């Protein structure tokens, strides 16, 4: 019982903080948003440390995975971010000479991520948990590679249809999607350091079930959400049948207009 309480306090509550923090970002007032950000950082740090604070919980394996994949994912995302904002775009944030550095960071991050599967070098982040392959690593890598291959290949085709000034983009998307797919195929043919090829093959097909379930579940929720709003909106009277605004509504409108008019006030 005491252990359950510790797990709730040190793993589930911080995870709840992260979700609450995401919810608070939708509030209009900046103090709530700021509070949400602080709460999110605290939640993230406590959850990240939960594999040390409550190692007995089976869910702590996910926290260990998060800490171990953070360097490679960070390198990939930050690298692409730098490469994007160092490019020839109007909202340039970094000097052009940083573009190759950004791309190199992406490649290094991806190589590090893959190296974690293929070798068990002690200097690399570990994919093990309690002496065996981390069960969440067996979910994360197949899902990530499969999702990336699928999205990149489909986007490579779609950007060709809709895009302007992106003649290189389609090619790069196809090539990256192809590399990702080849890595998937290699993983189902050759054993990794902590996972056999058959285990990986089963995991990647289960990941396909996960992705399909995830997309269907979120899709159904969005459909229900849209239908709920549509049902409510269609019952509202049309604009031409609305009564004229009362004094209170006019005052509110005047205040909104006053708050949004720029320039100096008259003395």
């Amino acid at each position, binding site marked *: 019982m005491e252990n359950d309480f510790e797990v709730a306090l040190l793993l589930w509550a911080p995870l709840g903080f992260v979700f609450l923090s995401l919810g608070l970002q939708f509030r209009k007032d900046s103090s709530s948003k700021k509070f949400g950000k602080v709460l999110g950082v605290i939640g993230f740090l406590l959850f990240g440390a939960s594999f040390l604070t409550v190692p007995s919980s089976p869910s702590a394996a996910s926290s260990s995975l998060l800490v171990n994949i953070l360097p490679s994912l960070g390198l990939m995302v930050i690298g692409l971010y730098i490469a994007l904002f160092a490019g020839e775009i109007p909202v340039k944030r970094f000097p052009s000479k940083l573009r190759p550095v950004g791309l190199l960071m992406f490649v290094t991050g991806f190589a590090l991520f893959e190296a974690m599967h293929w070798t068990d070098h002690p200097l690399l982040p570990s994919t093990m948990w309690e002496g065996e392959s981390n069960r969440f690593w067996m979910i994360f890598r197949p899902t990530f590679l499969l999702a*990336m291959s699928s999205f990149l290949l489909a986007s490579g085709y779609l950007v060709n249809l809709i895009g302007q000034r992106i003649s290189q983009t389609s090619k*790069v998307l196809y090539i990256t999607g192809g590399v990702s797919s080849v890595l998937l195929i290699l993983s*189902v043919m050759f054993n990794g350091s902590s996972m056999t090829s058959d285990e990986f093959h*089963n995991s990647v097909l289960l990941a396909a079930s*996960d992705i399909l379930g995830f997309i269907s579940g979120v899709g159904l*929720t969005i459909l229900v959400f849209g239908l709920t709003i549509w049902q409510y909106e269609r019952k509202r009277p049309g604009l031409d049948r609305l009564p004229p605004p009362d004094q209170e509504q006019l005052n509110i409108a005047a205040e909104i207009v006053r708050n949004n008019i720029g320039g100096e006030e008259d003395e």
Partner: protein
Amino acid sequence: MNKRITPLRLVIAGLLFLLPTLILVLLSKGSVYDSERGLIRFANAFLTSYTLASIFLVLNMFQYSKSRRQPTAPWVSMVFAAILGVLVTFLLTAQGGFLMEENGSRRAQILYNIIHFIVSSLAIMVAIGITVLISFVNLEAKEENKS
């Protein structure tokens, strides 16, 4: 909508999306895939993502209600939708229930589903993020008008 995006082209894009999965299915020849487990994983992923996304959207519905002079109907409907997800999850994770995987109890299964959802959604979100970033990284500078 862009005139060049026709239903046929969307089907082709969908097929390209499924191409890696189809290749992996062909390579397996049915030997390694545990189809019953796959169905359970699909159902668990579907129910968990539906329930968690519904709860998240209930919070958004409060914001919507505020902007519409606080009617209760929209968020009550969304709360019902979320409760439905929770109830179905509870029913199907009873001992020996359809959704039970290798976890010992209903509580363990539900908590595992939540963590599983977070890990899977993190993987999918990072993959989508990388796709979007790669798309924009190769944006070319607008050509100057040549006269």
